[in-house]
């Protein structure tokens, strides 16, 4: 099928987006996302696509809205601060029902922070960085291959629901080089009836997010909420690993899941029945993954002060059974460090009788 290459996470994502037919890139330099910007800058001339380095992420995100309004695939990749600046446009694109792909290569916040791996923008991504009632599907890759796959998927989901989609990567995954299989190119030529292309042989299309009255705006909001509900029912994605017989289930996404998987294997080698759930869509949060696991203990680990843990607590019957361990500032735990936490948990809940 595709081509097997050894590629850095950021570049794999950029190459995949180009192969998915995204020939419009508007962005602004920010570590750790700049390789995506640079990749596009290099490739667009030969693809006769468009690359624009905007003056700010505020402007870049609205350029994306302009391209999406013309019915073309467009992408912006940035980091947490860029998403903060682009938040207004994300809310706008949800209200205007514009499909676009936004990538947040997370770095430690708050404030300027650092530039390595972190997961402190979970709430920003899933609860919405902007104003108003809206949601965006959030995909969390944990490998260069998933960066490639999710680039394709993100555009399909965005167009399926006419809503922005976010890919939530981080400063670690972004820089790791791994072997990936790149799918063949596609050239999407879908003509969207709603797109702005000039009113030729049709009545004028208008894209606006300005309410005409509270009554009209509530009706419109309910249309959007219907869409979000459909996403919630249909698009939950996760991966489960040895959860059926597990006493304790680790819950981790993205780079944390890579680390946690090693710890889970260590535990299994020591007869500790530990499993893992890896949420892949962070919104909609995969509640379905927790069905039938009511009697388990859950150990959530993230590179933040505890954000996804709240959604885990919302998804399980007994909140007391959910514990959390996180690292901040760009520090990452070692597998052994997590394994030791699992041992503590086993002792605390007297599960070691099962070893």
């Amino acid at each position, binding site marked *: 099928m595709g081509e097997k290459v050894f590629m850095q996470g950021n570049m794999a994502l950029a190459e995949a987006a180009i192969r998915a037919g995204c020939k*419009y890139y*508007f962005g602004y330099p920010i570590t750790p996302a700049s390789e995506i910007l640079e990749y596009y800058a290099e490739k667009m001339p030969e693809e006769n696509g*468009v690359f*624009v380095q*905007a*003056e*700010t992420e*505020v*402007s*870049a*995100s*609205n*350029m*994306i*809205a*302009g*391209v*999406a*309004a*013309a019915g*073309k695939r*467009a992408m912006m990749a940035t980091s947490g601060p860029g998403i903060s600046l682009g938040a*207004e*446009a994300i809310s*706008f694109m949800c209200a*205007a029902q514009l499909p676009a792909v936004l990538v947040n290569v997370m770095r430690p916040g708050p404030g300027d922070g650092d530039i390595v791996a972190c997961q402190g923008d979970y709430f920003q991504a899933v609860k919405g960085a902007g104003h108003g009632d809206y949601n965006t599907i959030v995909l969390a890759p944990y490998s260069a291959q998933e960066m490639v796959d999710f680039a394709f998927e993100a555009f399909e989901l965005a167009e399926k629901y006419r809503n922005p989609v976010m890919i939530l990567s981080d400063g670690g995954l972004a820089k790791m080089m791994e072997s990936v299989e790149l799918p063949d190119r596609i050239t999407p030529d879908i003509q969207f009836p709603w797109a*702005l*292309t*000039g*009113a*030729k042989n049709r*009545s*004028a*299309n*208008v*894209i*606006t*997010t*300005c309410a*005409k009255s509270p009554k009209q705006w509530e009706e419109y909001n309910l249309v959007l909420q219907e869409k979000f509900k459909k996403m919630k029912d249909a698009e939950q994605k996760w991966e489960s690993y040895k959860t059926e017989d597990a006493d304790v289930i680790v819950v981790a996404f993205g780079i944390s899941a890579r680390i946690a998987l090693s710890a889970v294997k260590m535990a299994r080698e020591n007869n500790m029945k530990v499993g893992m759930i890896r949420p892949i869509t962070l919104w909609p949060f995969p509640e379905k993954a927790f069905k039938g696991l009511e009697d388990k203990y859950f150990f959530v680990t993230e590179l933040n002060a505890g954000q996804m843990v709240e959604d885990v607590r919302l998804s399980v019957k007994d909140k007391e059974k959910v514990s959390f361990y996180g690292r901040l500032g760009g520090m990452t735990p070692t597998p052994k460090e997590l394994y030791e936490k699992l041992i503590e948990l086993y002792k605390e809940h007297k599960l070691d009788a099962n070893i």
Partner: protein
Amino acid sequence: MKVVYKRPELLTDAHFSYCGGCGHGIINKLLAEIIEEEKLSEKAILVWPIGCSVYADQNFKVDSICALHGRAPSVGTGLKRALPENAVIVYQGDGDLVSEGMAEIMHAAIRGEKFSVIFVNNAIFGMTGGQMAPTTLLGQETTTSPYGRKVETSGYPVKMAELISNVQGCYFSERVYVNNPKNIMNAKKAIRKAIQYQMEGKGLSFVEVVSQCPTGWGVKPLDSLKMVETEMSKEYPLGVFKDMGVNGN
């Protein structure tokens, strides 16, 4: 029998949402006339701002998008880059362009984006009820400069047409008025030229239209026309500040 003037076909039946005597209505009408005369109704895409013309998408039978406050030049950039053959016309007020979106418009000019800009300068935030704008005149009373705008606290009025003309990517920049028949005709000529330049693939073309705002200025419509002559003209003189001409690039 000859029709001397007829309501442009391009305008829908919806009434303009502007106050009586407002310059926006005249400018919208001129825009509709030009799009019709230049046979661009199937190519035009209008980018509206947040401001008094926020609902103007309901008045035109052409593709329109209402951008976030200050972001119209960015949305315009995306649209024009995606659809180079279309006529992208970005319409903004002074709060939208000079205040919220100054970075956006300046960088659109810096990049030489190939769309046309109609910038309506009425020296006030109209839609939100008469607050001071960066274009408010010194001494002018507004709800946020109740004692008259003072240099010490809020600096000087911004001369946008001159300012943007100094950016190399700006191809054409003129300031016009719409406060009497002669000036209206001149305004129409300038806007037409800005759009024609665009269709010839030239860089950013910019028309600043000083516009009377009876409500915001607290005067009767006819007096607001005089105020353009007696007050606004001191700060915002008529004129072409840049015109790279037909064969400039």
